[in-house]
């Protein structure tokens, strides 16, 4: 029976990080007593007194503070209440944290948790996916776990890493996704074949993995075997695994939840087109959200993001080419 949720995995990883390393502390809005807006730090303030702190509503200063603490040898985990609000701390992330090692040879071991992605009714400012924005900047590691196992292991790995990590955890998966346990884990930077196939490759990550897997299942009923690659980390991006998959299938669809202009999905297409043009039997395709802010009403929201239906539809076009 599946018992552990994606959210519980995140809480458990933080619990273990706090338990195993006295240099780890948690910093975020409403996280100490209240346990966080999503309860990702539930009880941790009580279990680790003096290690879990409520911050003022100051995303810029929260990140700056974590950077200063990391320079001194601490390993902070900062919770942004919603990924969307990290834009207020953007400068500290991309200019201070991301440049510190390169400029000064001083590692910056901070983990910034971004509750990401859309859920019904959340609207334009509580639904964003920021991985593509941050991946653009050198000096950051961008993780996008799609499974309970990855949420757990990758968060533990993030805290151990000597570089700033943007940990994009998907809110839609918090309660819906369950697993029996945490399994073995995989190294950061390696993509995973989530479903093997030979007719087409879908490269995706985070919540879109699950929509893509459902779409692949739909196409199986039509006789197609679609391979689904879970990137796991947007940056670094495991180009080898992507190219190997495209070599098997000759067709590529890249699915992401963030906005369509540029970004992680474009990066996959650019790499495949540039390095494996000769392997392609069809033009590579991308599917992202629509190019508008994220809508509030569920009717609009479902049509704004890629879904099983829209991924299946794109796959059929790709397979017909």
């Amino acid at each position, binding site marked *: 029976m599946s018992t552990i949720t994606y959210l519980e995995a995140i809480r458990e990883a933080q619990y273990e990080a706090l338990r195993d390393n006295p240099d780890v502390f948690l910093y975020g809005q409403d996280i100490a007593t209240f346990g966080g807006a999503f309860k990702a730090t539930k009880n941790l303030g009580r279990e680790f007194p003096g290690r879990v702190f409520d911050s003022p509503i100051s995303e810029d200063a929260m*990140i700056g503070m974590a950077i200063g603490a990391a320079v001194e040898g*601490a390993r902070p985990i900062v919770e942004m209440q919603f990924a969307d609000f990290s834009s207020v701390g953007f400068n500290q992330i991309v200019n201070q944290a991301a440049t510190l090692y390169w400029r000064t040879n001083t590692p910056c071991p901070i983990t910034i948790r971004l509750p990401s992605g859309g859920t019904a009714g959340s609207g334009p400012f509580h639904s964003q996916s920021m991985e593509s924005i941050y991946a653009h900047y050198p000096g950051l590691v961008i993780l996008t776990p799609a499974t309970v196992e990855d949420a757990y292991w990758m968060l533990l790995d993030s805290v151990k890493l000597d570089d700033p990590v943007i940990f994009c955890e998907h809110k839609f998966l918090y309660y819906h996704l369950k697993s029996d346990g945490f399994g073995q884990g995989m190294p950061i930077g390696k993509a995973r074949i989530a479903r093997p196939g030979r007719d087409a490759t879908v490269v995706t990550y985070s919540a879109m993995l699950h929509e893509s897997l459902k779409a692949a299942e739909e196409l199986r009923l039509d006789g197609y075997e679609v391979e689904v690659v879970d990137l796991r980390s947007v940056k670094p991006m495991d180009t080898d695994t992507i190219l190997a998959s495209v070599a098997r299938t000759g067709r590529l669809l890249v699915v992401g939840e963030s906005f369509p202009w540029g970004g992680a999905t474009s990066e996959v297409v650019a790499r495949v087109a540039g390095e494996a043009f000769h392997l392609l039997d069809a033009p590579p395709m991308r599917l992202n959200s629509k190019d508008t802010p994220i809508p509030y009403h569920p009717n609009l929201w479902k049509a704004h993001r890629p879904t099983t239906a829209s991924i299946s539809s794109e796959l059929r076009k790709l397979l017909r080419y």
Partner: protein
Amino acid sequence: MTSADKIVTPAFNESAEDLRHDFLKALRCMILSRTLEEKLSSLYRAGGRIVGGVYLGRGQEAFSAAAGIQLRWGKDIFGPLIRDQAGRIAFGEPVIDTMRTYLGVVTGPMRGRDGNIHRGQPKQGYMAMISHLGSLLSVVAGALFARRLRGTLGDTAGATSIGDGGTSTGAFHEGLNLAAVEKLPLVVSVANNQYAYSTPNHRQYACEDLVQRAVGYGVGGHSVDGTDLLACVKIFRTAFQKARAGDGPQMVVGRLLRLGGHGEHDDASYVPDLQKHTHEGRDCLVVAQKQAVEQGWATPQDLEKWHKEARLEVDQALAMVTKEPVPDPYRENWRALSTEGLVEGQEP
């Protein structure tokens, strides 16, 4: 009650000998800073050696050095800003590191990857500023926070600087508020030099005096004549004593005038001549040297000797740096992550 009623300006309670010691230490840092910056200015004007801009602290040395001498290298945390050459020297940064960073040689702390005033050694508690004003405040606060968390704070103090313009940023507000909430031992120097690049104060803020803001943040507020080294030394001694004693952040506002442009590329023609002849426009180095002689702490011969020594030190540093290697793009590792295995396009 007006906000000014809450402004703390306690008496200097150290011995006359301590004051003399601090004053002369600061004065010598000012002389070295001015000498070094004059050299940088002429190198810039001559062209060829310094690639980027040159940003000087002329007119702000007294205010900067008076803060810097309160800091102990390797023990305290310092996040200086653009016009803190004197404070950097006072903190313990060797002159040659300034020269190395301006000339971009690989032997410098920034190894040609960053330049001029963007330099530091974070592991030594010496933060390297980025250009985004106000953003260093929370970083210095975080370093203090970590020390308290790990039980190593002791009598550590942190210090950082900002100008009148920088106080308008959200980062400054967020950072100072956070430091106040955490009651960290932090001294924030606000050099009110009347201009943010070319923008005068009346286009920058609407309060009567920036020190009034201290009340709003719940931090100690101190005002000082930034052209008066004696006054600056006294006020920073007090501010640091209070911060180290657990009174929380202290904000020191110094009133002065930037004696030059924003950078050496800027002739500051927007500063009216009349303003240059006001009290704020007087040269703090001239004032400090006069004070030293009047107090009987130094003779004109001492001053001449210190200037001469400073010129020698600067000339030797330049001669040395001129022989040092510049970065080679073919030897650069082009790696922005410390974890080698995660760098794309490079084998672990």
